[in-house]
């Protein structure tokens, strides 16, 4: 390399001291080089050590971690050998960082302006008098509207996207030579993520910085990085140009990871990676990935493979890179079971509306002059038996609210929920009949919250079994084992507690609990969003198998359009609690479609470096739907005129049976 690397990590090993006293490594012999103007992506699943690596590049280790060996050179000197003063000068100066969750990374008691000025005072040579102007300049560089107002705000008063922009502006305050980005768009809506990534691309282009981009999302990496490093169990297993790594990687793990990603254009289910990554210190003497690798042989299991450089500059930690081509990179797993919408009706939602604002004493005494707009409004959907309905939308679109209402946890303020075509369900769960309760089961987003931490798996599964089928003793246990087997967990899980299970296992138990009731309808609320992508694929596969064998009706809620795509027969797109578009999955994901659907689809980042996302008209978060007109009017890039503000858009039915609610005629969409 002509130019010396700006960040040069050599053979770094970082570990923590376990209770037993042994030092367990979380990063093993990691090498990393980034030059000015280069952007490197670090990819890995949770626990792979990617964030630790990024922070180590700043000479920072979290409490409890310690460096066991290796060097972290920045500009030629080891960060760990520097004095506190030197570190303080480099951090935030030559070396900037953008944290994962800016909402929590900005000090809540200090105004944005104060925090920005602090960064300037520490790292910028400008005279104090010019700081104000510089802050405004930086905030407008990250395209924040009205910077002088933003400066007066406290962090909690900004939306997630705005907080992230402030964090980027703050990192730029020191005119950094290198920028470390730790999952900078995780937790943001896809449309906001698209905006932020565009901004980062442009900054990289104009400032000639070195960028290290940490993410679990290969789509994000594809968008912003030239080079990728894949971490597995604290080791670099693969490094190479983004295009190669994303299309034809030479490591089995990377190929498996790619295959487990659901894609918009793919009608098959993604393929799950079996097994789980080793816990630190349990990697053994062989290849860390060997237990999950289809190619593994005795050599892989006993000897740690070295890094091998391939012909086109890819570096892989595998004994048999030439054989990896056998493993598919596109998930063409199981064919999803599909169902027509014309069978018997399982569930009917008739003009459902839900208001979150509960009326308290004060509201009852002094009713507000303007009636509040319901959070969710005008939801009418008829679900056929065995059908899967996907509900997609960004945060705040009311998709989970609808599920809670169907489950009886949140009484609607208007409209009806009917079992089948004509049996109305009481809004209140306490008044529903036992067989009605049994028919509808819900799986929650986060298994840590939805499984009682004080119960064993057996106790968790016995709750519905005892309640609905009055099972006791031996029969109950047999049924519980049977259920565990349907979700591919063995009977030895019976006496475990949730804390002893991995995220994917927990979610399987939650699924098993729902199916314990022999339900007709299962409500899935973002059930894969807390899981790693390879685990997510396994849960999707499981849901599909259950559907095949039990003919279950699903309502599948997700913010992730690709996840919904693979499983759903029909998809409804929600914005601000109103349906924009609903129809057969193929039709909704095809064109023409509602302007909002269009933007959502285009904001999806696929692990493909050649696709650029389309951007929304305005990157703001709306807190309440507009009182009248189209719910999407404020952000629509194709807004017509006053019609959109005053009239509720009409339902237009397309030839392929899908309904779009928009003022623009269907043939012009």
């Amino acid at each position, binding site marked *: 390399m002509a130019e010396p690397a700006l960040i040069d990590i050599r053979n770094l090993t970082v570990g923590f001291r376990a209770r037993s006293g042994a030092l367990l490594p979380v990063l093993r012999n990691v090498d990393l080089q980034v030059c000015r103007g280069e952007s490197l992506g670090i990819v890995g699943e949770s626990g792979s050590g990617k964030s630790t690596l990024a922070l180590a590049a700043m000479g920072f280790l979290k409490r409890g971690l310690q460096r066991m060996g290796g060097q972290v050179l920045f500009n030629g000197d080891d960060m760990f050998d520097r004095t506190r003063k030197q570190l303080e000068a480099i951090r935030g100066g030559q070396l900037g960082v953008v944290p994962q969750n800016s909402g929590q990374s900005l000090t809540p008691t200090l105004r944005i302006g104060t925090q920005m000025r602090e960064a300037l005072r*520490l790292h910028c040579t400008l005279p104090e008098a010019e700081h104000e102007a510089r802050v405004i300049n930086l905030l407008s560089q990250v395209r924040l509207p009205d910077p002088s107002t933003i400066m007066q705000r406290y962090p909690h008063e900004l939306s997630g996207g705005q907080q992230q922009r402030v964090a980027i502006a703050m990192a730029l305050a020191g005119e950094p030579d290198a920028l470390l980005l730790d999952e900078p768009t995780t937790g943001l809506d896809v449309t906001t993520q698209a905006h932020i990534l565009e901004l980062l691309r442009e900054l990289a282009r104009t400032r000639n910085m070195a960028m290290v981009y940490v993410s679990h999302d290969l789509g994000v990496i594809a968008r912003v990085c030239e080079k990728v490093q894949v971490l597995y169990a604290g080791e670099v297993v693969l490094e190479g140009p983004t295009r190669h790594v994303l299309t034809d990687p030479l490591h089995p793990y990377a190929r498996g990871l790619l295959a487990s990603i659901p894609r918009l254009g793919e009608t098959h289910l993604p393929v799950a990676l079996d097994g789980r990554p080793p816990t630190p210190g349990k990697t053994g003497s062989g290849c860390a990935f060997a237990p999950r690798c289809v190619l593994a042989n005795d050599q892989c299991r006993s000897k740690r493979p070295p890094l091998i450089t391939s012909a086109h500059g890819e570096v892989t930690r595998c004994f048999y890179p030439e054989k990896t081509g056998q493993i598919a990179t596109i998930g063409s797993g199981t064919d999803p079971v599909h169902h027509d919408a014309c069978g018997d009706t399982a569930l009917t939602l008739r003009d459902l509306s839900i208001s979150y604002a509960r009326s308290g004493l004060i509201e009852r005494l002094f009713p507000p002059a303007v009636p509040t707009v319901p959070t969710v409004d005008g939801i009418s959907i008829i679900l056929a038996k065995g059908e899967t309905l996907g509900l997609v939308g960004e945060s705040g679109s009311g998709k989970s609210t609808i599920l809670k209402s169907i489950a009886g946890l949140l009484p609607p303020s208007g409209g009806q929920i009917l079992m089948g075509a004509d049996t109305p369900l009481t809004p209140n769960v306490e008044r529903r009949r036992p067989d009605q309760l049994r028919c509808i089961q819900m799986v929650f987003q986060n298994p840590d919250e939805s499984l009682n931490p004080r119960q064993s798996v057996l106790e968790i599964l016995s709750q519905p079994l005892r309640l609905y089928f009055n099972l006791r003793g031996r029969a109950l246990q047999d049924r519980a084992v049977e259920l565990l087997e349907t979700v591919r967990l063995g009977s030895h899980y019976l006496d475990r507690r949730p804390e002893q299970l991995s995220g994917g296992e927990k979610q399987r138990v939650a699924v098993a609990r729902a199916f314990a009731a022999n339900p007709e309808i299962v409500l899935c609320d973002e059930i894969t969003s807390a899981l790693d992508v390879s685990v997510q694929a396994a849960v999707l596969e499981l849901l599909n198998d259950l559907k095949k064998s039990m003919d279950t009706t699903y309502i599948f809620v997700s913010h992730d359009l690709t996840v919904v795509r693979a499983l759903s027969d029909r998809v409804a797109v929600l914005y601000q609690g109103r349906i924009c578009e609903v129809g057969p999955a193929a039709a909704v994901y095809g064109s023409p479609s509602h302007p909002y659907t269009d933007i959502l689809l285009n904001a999806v980042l696929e692990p493909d470096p050649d696709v650029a996302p389309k951007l929304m008209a305005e990157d703001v978060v709306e807190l309440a739907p507009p009182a009248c007109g189209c719910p999407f009017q404020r952000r629509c890039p194709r807004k017509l005129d006053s019609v959109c503000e005053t009239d509720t858009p009409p339902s237009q039915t397309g030839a392929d049976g899908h309904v779009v609610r928009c003022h623009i005629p269907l043939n012009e969409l």
Partner: protein
Amino acid sequence: MVHTPHPDKGLDEGIKLGLGSESDPALTRTGPADMTSLLLRRLALGLVTIWIVSVIIFLGVEALPGDACTAVLERDAQGEVLAKCRDDLGLNAPALTRYADWAVGVLHGDFGMSANGLQSISELVGYRVRNSLLLAAGALSVGIPLAIFLGTVAGLWRDKPIDLLFSTGAIFAMTIPDFVSATILILIFAIWLGWVPAIVITPADAPPLDFFPEFVLAAVVLTLVMIAHIMRMVRSSVIEVMATDYVQMATLKGVPYWRIVLTHALPNALLPAINVIALTIAWLLGGVVVVEVVFNYPGLGRMLVDAVSDRDLPVIQAITLIVAATYVGVNLVADILAMMLNPRLRTHQTRRQ
């Protein structure tokens, strides 16, 4: 209970203020947490609490066997004398009327006469309140800054020897009964070393300076207990805040360590301490019965014990009401202060506009 301030009085307030969670029904029920309506609600709750306290006190005293007359007349309390006395003091009126009379009097600053019928309670209590305030001020002025300092140091050097020293010390100071620590201090400083008198013999209405240096030991005992509680709270708060993402971010921004501690960490760590300090103040002003008795200090607490021994019911009523009102008042002020200082509560509304 006697020497330790109530351990969880602050808990709910903390939640109500949104320091802990937003799921508190008090917040959701009033709809958007508008600052003014929140304050008004808090104020109204305080007044309701004081009213309920007054009813409890009145009913409690009512339920006791004997009344002001039996206490004054003692053995003569029978027959005509008793009847006449009751008539004179208006004790034969219905309970509701008597409660109303008493309450109206209290609102005008008139607590009635003490049971011996000779002294106005307002006058008697006045000096005692001042003396208790004096003691509290002495303990607070040293205790609060010291507690915050020690708690911060212990939190920053968590699990290091200095933290172990402070934390263990705090457990001792917190758990050793105050009459025990008072006894030990008297033994050392008054009896063995002879630096200060063991007890206060100054009369209640003496000028403040006359209590010096006798009151030093009493103040030290109170300070010890108080420091222990506040210190432990500050320590855990500092540890929590130092582990937050924003402190890590400040480190990665290159902010010097002490600047991080002072500008980023401490303001956030000390917000929840406000309510704890308020509880301590309320406790110091009202409940320090044992220490006042041990040192013979003429404050409200000792007066309360004396009144109980003498069955001086009007005085008991008066002191209890004063203490309860102080408790409610101080907590109210703390709540308002915490609200003012916490931007997350202060500016809850602006985002919606």
